[in-house]
């Protein structure tokens, strides 16, 4: 994997990091903290970093995937072939991380990604657990975490243990609904009954057929991983048709404050997995901020509420800088080996690729939270932590209230 000499035309004492993120398009909410984080990193690396006894400048080249996997692949090859980056990082959903990682793998460029459940990343790219990948590394939680956390959560309230599921036909839905690797087998094991009407094609205008089925089967828990508009439809129509589950735990749709705001008062009581929050007891390895301080700095700088990708984006740069400092040179293999040897405490928790469930994967902790009313505002608080006991609970799980 030797690139032609022209690609290496960049100055020898600069580390170039290519950063791919869905700045525009349907996934743009994931990229909201990007500018803040990059600004932070630029300040922290303004004087360069030391690596192998030599001082290197750090340059970040930011590319927009437009929430489109084709574009993600295209900009990655641009980063590699035109800009000659030394390291590619990317984040947020398989639609971004998978094509980016595929390009890096094919072109022999080190790559670190996060914020995609690791199964969707590893198996979604047709990875072989025996072989793994050469160049691409990923850290995030996996299905086993979300399954563990959710099933534990649902046992905290008395219910009939009947679950209605909403798994669309996309990267996440297919992984979560997978009979062996996903929820179904786990739910069976832990004594829940569930209704899976099959993978549906989003967007869906009308969920009546789901709702009447759920009502018929007296479902008290709803779970799924669906997009905000689909969930809005579901939730509105559930209201119309008088379907009143006790617990609603859906990923994606209720992860972001703005999206939740769209549901108005009916957002209160919804539960969702949490990959990061200001309450996580971790500190940044580069800015030394605690999670809470990071969130506060973000809100102060942007006057926006914190969201989960903030911590993930920050941690991505933490790992990248750590790797480059340890690499000692711009040699791709040296950088790759440095990634492999990563063992870093970041603001989202410890990152280590050596003891992942499959090669190239490092795991970060996961808990579950609930949108609860604090005064006139909704706040996401941790209500379940069985998968990551080091993260403290903030509140008790409450059933959804209906007027």
């Amino acid at each position, binding site marked *: 994997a030797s690139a032609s000499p022209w690609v290496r035309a960049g100055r020898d004492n600069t580390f170039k990091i290519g950063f791919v993120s869905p700045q525009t398009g349907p996934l743009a909410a994931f990229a909201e903290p990007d500018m803040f984080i990059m600004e932070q990193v630029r300040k922290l690396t303004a004087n360069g970093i030391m690596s192998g006894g030599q001082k290197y400048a750090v340059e970040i080249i930011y590319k927009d995937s*437009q929430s489109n996997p084709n574009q993600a692949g295209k900009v990655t*090859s641009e980063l590699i072939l*035109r800009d000659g980056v030394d390291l590619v990082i990317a984040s947020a959903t398989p*639609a971004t991380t998978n094509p980016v990682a595929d390009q890096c793998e094919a072109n022999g460029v080190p790559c670190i990604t996060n914020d995609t459940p690791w199964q969707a990343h590893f198996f979604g790219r047709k990875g072989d657990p025996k072989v793994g990948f050469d160049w691409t590394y990923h850290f995030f939680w996996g299905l086993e975490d979300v399954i563990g956390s959710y099933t534990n959560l649902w046992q905290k309230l008395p219910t009939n243990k009947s679950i209605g599921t909403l798994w669309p036909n996309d*990267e996440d839905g297919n992984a979560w609904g997978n009979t062996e690797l996903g929820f179904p087998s786990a739910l069976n094991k832990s004594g829940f009954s569930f209704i899976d009407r099959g993978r549906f094609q989003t967007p869906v205008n009308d969920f009546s057929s789901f709702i009447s089925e759920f009502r018929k089967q007296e479902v008290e828990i709803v779970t799924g991983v669906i997009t905000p508009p689909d969930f809005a439809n579901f939730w509105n129509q559930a209201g119309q048709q008088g379907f009143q589950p006790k617990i609603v735990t859906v990923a994606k749709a209720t992860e972001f404050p703005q999206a939740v705001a769209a549901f108005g008062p009916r957002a209160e009581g919804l539960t969702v997995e949490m990959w990061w929050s200001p309450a996580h007891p971790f500190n940044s390895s580069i800015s030394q901020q605690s999670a809470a301080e990071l969130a506060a700095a973000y809100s102060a700088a942007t006057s926006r509420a914190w969201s989960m990708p903030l911590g993930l984006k920050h941690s991505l740069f933490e790992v990248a800088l750590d790797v480059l400092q340890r690499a000692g040179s711009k040699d791709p293999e040296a950088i790759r080996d440095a990634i492999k040897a990563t063992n870093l405490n970041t603001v989202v928790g410890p990152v280590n690729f050596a003891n992942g469930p499959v090669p190239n994967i490092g795991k970060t902790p996961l808990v579950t939270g609930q949108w609860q009313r604090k005064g006139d505002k909704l706040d996401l608080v941790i209500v379940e932590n069985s998968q990551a006991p080091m993260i403290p609970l903030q509140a008790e799980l409450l059933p959804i209230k209906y007027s």
Partner: protein
Amino acid sequence: MTRNIVAAVVAVGLVILAASLPFWGEAYWMHEFVMVSCFFVFAMMWNLMAGYGGMVSVGQQAWFGLGGYFMLALANLGGVNPFVAIVLGAVLSTLIALPMSKLAFRLQGGYFAIGTWVMAEVVRLTVANISIVGGGSGTSLTAFRGVSRALRENVTYWVALVAVVATIVLVYLFLRSKQGLALQAIRDSEVAAESQGINVARMKLAVYLVSAFGCAIAGGLYFVSNLRISPDAAFSVNWTAFGIFIVMIGGIGRIEGPVIGTLVFWLVSHYFSDYGTWYLIGLGALAIMMTLYARQGITGLLDRFLGVDLFPTRRVFVARKVEAKPAPAARVYNETAGVA
């Protein structure tokens, strides 16, 4: 005649020069060329349909995506060499286009346009429900794992070059053949064409199928280079949007149109694609402006003001002496040819 030879020599020289790029150029140039050539082939095919066949389709992404998916399925599941799979995939896509054309031809004009779009959606939804190619999540092309980067890059580049040259040459030869005459005649008047012995229905079907084949080649090539496919990306209507923009900006109903359009498109995307949405807004606005104020596109303007005609397909009558072959590069009339 001599001008003809000179032109041919220059063209062959250019192709040879281009073919040797892997030995002296940058990998990035090759990559860029592959991407652009997919758009170019796609635009040529859209031009063939709309500019010559009078069929405005908004559903060409169906064949682009199918080409990609067939290539990937053949390569991943069937172990076929991906480059061979591109061609096989295009053949399979064309087979699917055959029954679809029967439905599409029931609609005319604007309804044909949206009807083809619906059919593309049907194809997308169907593919999204086939789990062996990853369903809605899509899948990665694994056939290249273990193949050296340089080899993959070079061969992909050469295949793209062949696709581009073949598209230009074949379309050009087609238009200079008897069938090309028929196509132009149909564009001007279907009734009269039919009464002059031209089988209009068969001709339109042929154009539809050739166009499907070409789009599928472009799709296969694109995903060989992009390595990852998903239904939403492969069957995105944006492919057709870009095709239309390229053709309308370059000039519809001429071979030079897509050539120049692609050049403009490449420049614009090279310098502005980082602007995301604004870049698309700009392209759309440019196409609208061209449609309103210069319907023949840039080539139409060039022809009108400079008399440039790179790919003469017109037969010129030379009194008292009948030539076996059309004379080259001569200008015949001032009026620009185009969609009637």
